[in-house]
């Protein structure tokens, strides 16, 4: 890295530092390739670091993600750029050139010691994105406890420029006038490991998502279940009551042509079962019901996980929830037709409802976008040579892994990222051999 003119040479540019991006970067870096890892958020770790536990082992997500995050952040062969967006990636004679823009944190990163005095001094509270609006954070804050890097971000929308943080900072690193910075990266190959979004809460208006306070998204429930979650317990947002009956609405954003998402998102059955198990641990007397069309427990150990949940007393009801109403106490009334009895529709009441939303790509290629890849009809990246080459995109030298190419769980995303790293390494080696003058230039 040449800090003077903001230029960097690397073997591989990895876009997105979720678990797939981290895995691909580590696999390459451990082999000796140099990696530029770009993340748009202030911390690496993606969605996985946001979860409470993972299926089917019920490992603590924080405990198993943070080592990967730390390894990548401290790896001598990885240059990490957080709060950085890729503007454009273009092909050059011997690889790719990417222009990045690093957005201002409004602190000098090389001086910050991560002491959080600024955060303590700040008096402005705003809804916390990391807790999906359930908790609050300060206008200047480290995004979450185990964020990497441990630098605070000043929220320029919420900040009232009182100066309390600057006074509290022991190293005078707060810079209210910091500007975005351009960075150019030259790389021989690119791996795209961009993120997914959940389908919108209000996609199916019959469910009242985003309107009824006790209808939650699955990621909100992850935070309620996390040990360092916003309430420290599982409580209903409307009144802080401990819920006695919790319902999961499966396929609330997938397998539904009327929502434009005809495919199965693959993870919803398993995360609903996992959350149901965790809930029966935190709320032992609560009734937990999963309304499903069919349970898709396809991975290693998943069917057993599902059978364990049944044996634990979690109710599985084969019925698609058609409509949710709310009574005056914010309890929820679900209209269903039970397919096992065939006795016609009925209305069932629950205290708290989780919509098992589906996965859609967070980044979709556009002709004038970051990189001119092609997508499939579902919006995920096209893999023209799948299944034999499941990481090759429509551009030579550009590889993809994780949820950028389709809905995946963590296990599959990691496997996929390893394969992408291998494919990229092969590509870089081939390029080296065909251009011997450049051999060893960056190695």
């Amino acid at each position, binding site marked *: 890295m040449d800090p003077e003119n903001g230029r960097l040479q690397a073997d591989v540019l990895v876009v997105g530092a979720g678990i797939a991006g981290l895995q691909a970067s580590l696999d390459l870096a451990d082999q000796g390739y140099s990696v530029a890892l770009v993340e748009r958020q202030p911390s690496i770790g993606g969605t996985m670091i946001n979860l409470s536990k993972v299926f089917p082992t019920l490992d603590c997500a924080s405990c198993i993600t943070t080592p990967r995050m730390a390894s990548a952040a401290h790896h001598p062969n990885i240059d990490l750029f957080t709060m950085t967006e890729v503007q454009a990636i273009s092909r050059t004679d011997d690889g790719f050139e990417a222009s990045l823009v690093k957005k201002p944190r409004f602190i000098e990163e090389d001086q910050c010691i991560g002491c959080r005095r600024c955060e303590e001094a700040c008096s402005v509270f705003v809804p916390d994105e990391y807790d999906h609006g359930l908790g609050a954070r300060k206008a200047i804050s480290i995004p979450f406890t185990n964020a990497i890097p441990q630098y605070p971000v000043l929220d320029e929308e919420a900040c009232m420029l009182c100066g309390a943080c600057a006074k509290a900072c022991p190293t005078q690193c707060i810079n209210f006038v910091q500007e975005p910075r351009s960075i150019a990266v030259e790389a021989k190959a690119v791996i795209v490991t961009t993120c997914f979004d959940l389908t919108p809460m209000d996609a199916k208006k*019959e469910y009242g998502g985003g309107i009824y306070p006790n209808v939650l998204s699955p990621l909100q429930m992850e935070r309620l279940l996390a040990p360092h979650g916003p309430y420290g317990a599982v409580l209903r947002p409307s009144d802080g009551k401990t819920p006695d009956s919790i319902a999961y609405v499966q396929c609330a954003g997938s397998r539904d042509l*009327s929502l434009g998402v005809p495919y199965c998102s693959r993870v919803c059955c398993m995360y609903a079962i996992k959350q149901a198990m965790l809930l029966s641990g935190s709320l032992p007397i609560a009734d937990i019901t999963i309304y499903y069309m069919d349970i898709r427990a396809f991975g290693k150990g998943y069917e057993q996980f599902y059978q364990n949940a049944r044996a634990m007393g979690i109710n599985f009801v084969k019925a698609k929830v*058609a409509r949710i109403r709310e009574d005056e106490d914010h309890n929820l009334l679900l*209209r269903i037709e039970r*397919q096992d009895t*065939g006795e*016609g*529709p009925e209305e069932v009441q629950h205290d708290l409802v989780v919509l098992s939303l589906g996965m859609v790509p967070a980044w979709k290629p556009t002709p004038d976008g970051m990189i001119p890849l092609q997508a499939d009809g579902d919006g995920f990246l096209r893999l023209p040579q799948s299944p034999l080459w499941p990481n090759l995109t429509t551009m030579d030298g550009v590889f993809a892994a994780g949820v950028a190419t389709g809905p995946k769980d963590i296990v599959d995303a990691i496997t996929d990222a390893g394969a992408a790293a291998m494919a990229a390494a092969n590509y870089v080696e081939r390029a080296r051999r065909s251009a011997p003058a450049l051999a060893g230039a960056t190695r």
Partner: protein
Amino acid sequence: MAITVDARLLKDIKRHGAFDVSACFHCGNCTAVCPLSDEHGNFPRRIIRLGQIGDRERLLDSPEAWLCYYCGECSDTCPREAEPGEYMAAVRRYAIASAEPTGLARWAYGSTLGLLAITALFGAILGAFLVGVRPPSEVQHVLFRMVSYGAVHSVGIAVMVLTVLSMAVSVTRVLRRFLKGAGPQPIAAYARAARATLVELATMKRHRDETPTPNEPWYRNAASVHLAILWGFLGLLAATILDYIFIALLPLGITTFWPARIIGTISGVVMMAGVTAAIVRRLAKVEKNVARTDPMDWWLLWVLWILGITGFWLEVAVTLRASNALSVIVLLVHAALAMELILLTTFTKFAHVIYRPLALFAYFVRRGTAS
């Protein structure tokens, strides 16, 4: 219970509606989202199932298809875009087309050409009777030179008698089917169900209160339009019968301002408003339920519309004592078409006047016995 599987059933139903009900994976969203479905009238999924497995007998035994008002909620929210609402409409068409023994309805529903041929044929037969029958009559209005006043009444009464007979057969058959599941009930239960049925028919309260109303002014929504046609038609029927009685009692004394005539005029205006609105709704495809119009749907609306227009023409002609040839032809068309509509009741969409009330009756019988 043994089931006779009719392997052609789904294909036959599909002929009456363009939809892909084979896409249905039985999630039950349609039944749960339906504002009218309950344990006494469980649809659409159960009805889709009967079609898919080819259980023709139980499909025709189920009143559910006729409890559906096609509000379109199920089709809007169906995850498979299998159009359950359109399927229910197709089942209704199938029931009329296939459940009468002469094959006439099947022909009428099978092709536009068949429908027009039947209309022309019966029109011609009735027209020939109207022109040919010449009973003595005291009404010497110039309009009745070709079609005598007495002929209209004689042929009209014959048509009424025939229709009542065929409807009686139809009603008995359909009612026996619809009540199969309910078992014998005390008379009082049937009386209560009949009362509830009449109230619903007269007010369409279930339609107005329970199905979602799109942003449409009250005078243009489906329930109001249907109520206008229904009440207009009943008013005209009453006026026709009263007119006949008045004329029998007071020969030659009828004018436009006799009560029966006033009822007829008002009813005519109401019905024409309803029919015109219904035609506009279908032309403009304002809602899902009118997005697809079967030739039979057009047939019924246009027959009613033509009857209304010619009726007003004749009222003006009689009042002004008009004597042009065109008015004579209008009279012939009006009389023949009106009789045809009545005579063909059980073979056309008009048969819903049998099916809908009987389905409601069966539903209220079931519901009454459960509570």
